């Protein structure tokens, strides 16, 4: 087990390095954006002098490298800074949004992963039958629709009939059951979006193993077909499945802007879009960093879990 902790430490170190590189990329990319907050707030009629004065006031006149170093220094100390647009603490802005985003991501995961695994296992069990094709076609169709279209379909069928709310308002005081009820539709939309990918990987990873001698051995021991797959193939297929699940989780945290907008859900995605349109650079930077962090942490978790799922890697000879 010692080697696993060593690996975790190693990957965490690499993750930090990646974060550093990403922070440069984020900062650089935002520098490249045309226009800045001063121009945006003062409008087109502002004279160059007022714009310059305003820039000086909010510190935009300093050279980029200085601003980057200042920003990074603050971030490392846990100070994300203030929003340039309305002067609020960014940590406060994010603090109210991040839990919502995580809640929705977790909700969709809890729905999607068991469904995807079950469908994948069943598709592998009944491979090349009508059932297999039906599952494939259905999940592929759902992934092929644009998210907003799926969302509107669900609103049409499930919200118009009054079963679920189409506006996913949630507040800090709301109980868990209320939250679950109110966010059912966005969670379901996201489930449709991510299931196909995970299900197909589960099926492929299992089918890949079915020609192995130890699968034949299991059959010759009298193990039933379902158990052959669940007990003998699945544990050896975990590594690719875990990786796909992690990628989809990362997507659920970072890529749900459209769904948040459709259901007016107060998540990080909306905050990001709003801030970009307002040129609220500090907020955009902070949110981007959080997204990057989510990707890195999830991939790290996936690596560790796939290692743990493989006895050859944790039990040395």
């Amino acid at each position: 087990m010692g080697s696993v902790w060593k690996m975790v430490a190693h990957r965490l170190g690499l993750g930090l390095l990646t974060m550093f590189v990403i922070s440069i990329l984020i900062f650089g990319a935002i520098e490249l954006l045309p226009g800045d907050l001063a121009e945006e707030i003062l409008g087109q009629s502002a004279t160059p002098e007022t714009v310059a004065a305003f820039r000086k006031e909010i510190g935009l006149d300093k050279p980029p490298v200085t601003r980057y170093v200042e920003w990074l220094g603050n971030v490392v100390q846990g100070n994300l800074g203030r929003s340039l647009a309305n002067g609020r603490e960014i940590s406060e802005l994010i603090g109210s949004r991040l839990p919502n985003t995580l809640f929705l991501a977790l909700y969709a995961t809890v729905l999607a992963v068991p469904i995807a695994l079950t469908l994948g296992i069943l598709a592998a069990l009944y491979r090349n039958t009508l059932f297999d094709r039906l599952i494939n076609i259905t999940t592929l169709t759902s992934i092929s629709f644009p998210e907003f279209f799926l969302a509107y379909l669900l609103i049409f069928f499930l919200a118009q009939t009054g079963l679920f709310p189409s506006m996913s308002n949630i507040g800090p005081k709301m109980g868990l059951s209320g939250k679950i009820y109110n966010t059912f539709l966005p969670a379901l939309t996201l489930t449709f979006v991510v299931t196909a990918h995970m299900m197909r990987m589960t099926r492929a990873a299992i089918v890949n193993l079915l020609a192995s001698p130890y699968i034949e051995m299991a059959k010759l021991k009298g193990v039933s077909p379902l158990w052959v797959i669940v007990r003998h193939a699945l544990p050896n297929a975990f590594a690719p499945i875990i990786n796909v699940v992690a990628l989809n989780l990362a997507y659920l945290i970072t890529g749900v802007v459209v769904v948040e907008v459709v259901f007016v859900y107060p998540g990080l995605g909306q905050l990001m879009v709003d801030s970009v349109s307002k040129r609220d650079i500090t907020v955009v930077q902070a949110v981007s960093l959080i997204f990057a962090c989510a990707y890195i942490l999830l991939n790290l978790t996936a690596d560790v879990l796939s290692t743990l799922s493989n006895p050859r890697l944790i039990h040395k000879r």
Partner: protein
Amino acid sequence: MTGPQNLLEIKNLCIEGRSGTSWSNIVNGIDLTLERGEVIGLIGESGAGKSTIGLAAMGFARDGCRISDGTILFDGIDLRAASVSARRKLRGNRIAYVAQSAAASFNPAYKLIDQYCEGPVLHGSMERDKAESDAIELYRRMQLPSPDEIGFRYPHQVSGGQLQRAMTAMAMACRPDLIVFDEPTTALDVTTQIEVLSAIRDIVGQFNTAAIYITHDLAVVAQMADRIKVLLRGEEVEESDTKTMLKTPKEEYTKSLWAVRTYARPEHPLQSTQETPVLSVENVSASYGDLQVLFDASFDIHRRQTVAVVGESGSGKSTAARVISGLLPPETGTVKFEGERLPPEYKRRSKNQLRQIQMIYQMADTALNPKHRIRELIGRPAELYLGLRGKALEERVRELLSLIELEPDEYIDRMPSELSGGQKQRIGIARALAAEPQVIICDEVTSALDQLVAEGILKLLDQIQDKFGLAYMFITHDLATVRSIADEVVVMKEGRVVETGPKTKMFTPPHHPYTELLLSSVPEMDASWLDRLLESRANKNVEK
């Protein structure tokens, strides 16, 4: 019809295999009967249908195969007519299977004992606790080291020979009436093979289990079986009890199988010991990472000579080849070609130096790029090393094809997938020859081939050697091959060279103790060989 004394009664068994959309016969009207406690050996080359028949005895057909005709009666139960679940109840319970590669047939995700207990718990014959203590008992009977503890290891933590015994124990878990052994020792070293063979024979005898023993090795089957059935392309050649079969085989095909081991090439005596060896390995040590695998190894290879490097798996034979070819730079020591020191890394060797040493690999299947035609496979080294182009290149490829006895017009545009195993190995030879080398390293080139095919390859290699005066480094674990082709022998053990010398000296006593162990472990065509060997070894141990 069905005598109650027969445990297994197979009549007119026909099995079809699918190729594309059509079905063709791969097993054609086989009859087989087996009494309780009896062992029958199925023998034949690859494609004879041995495994297919063995699996059919369990009512099982692999994907792409189907049992098309005949009856399979196991203890009066018609396996073809029985329901799927009825067959499943028999498998692992009353009929068990031991596969060729135990390393691949144990599930890598579970400990050995979990896999042992799966059968008894599934079939309801034992509770988990009981099954565990039973497993330990059987591990002990199979003479596995530390039987109390070995079951709690994962398959990758256990050696091949031990895994094969653990698999036999697992097959015994439900005390079946019949076990199908599918080449259980083929992947093992000779010294390990003996332990497994005797363990299998003991346990089968102790529980009076009937067995179908499938192998391509006559000497092995002679130790194990009461009766032998010889198969060829899905049909029976002949069947009789083991002694009769060994002494007086009736059919020509059986006789030809028996005769294979007699091939021997005339030796090429060393011209003079003063001559500079074409290749010399001097005090080479090499490691993979922290693991040292070669310790101070030295040997020479002279022109027109075949040096056989023998040893068990892990003895460092192939590592030596990798050092010579520059794939693995040694830590200390040098490799000299015609007295000149070769750079340790292949990247730093000149094109001419690279050209002089070529390799032929064990798995011709994976050593040939499946997307290239024969023309490209053979033509590429000729183009690279000798700068042949266009017409000259085509001529050369055709010449090489004739040399390896493949009709140029027919084969030059084929893909590797359109060749048999022996033909692929011939292409491997032609590819090595295309570079016009002085030394060819043959790494277990005949191990994956049937005996008759392997003999053809050995003869071809000899002809080529005579024609071009090549030196061969012939890596093998098979002493019969050494006996038939070598001039000099290098015996390796655990990364060290333990003995070198001319073949005749090597095969005449007194031997180095390890050479002695290797030599005595090669099965002989004598049904009592294993008994005598075990007895003499037991006596020796007592003397010590």
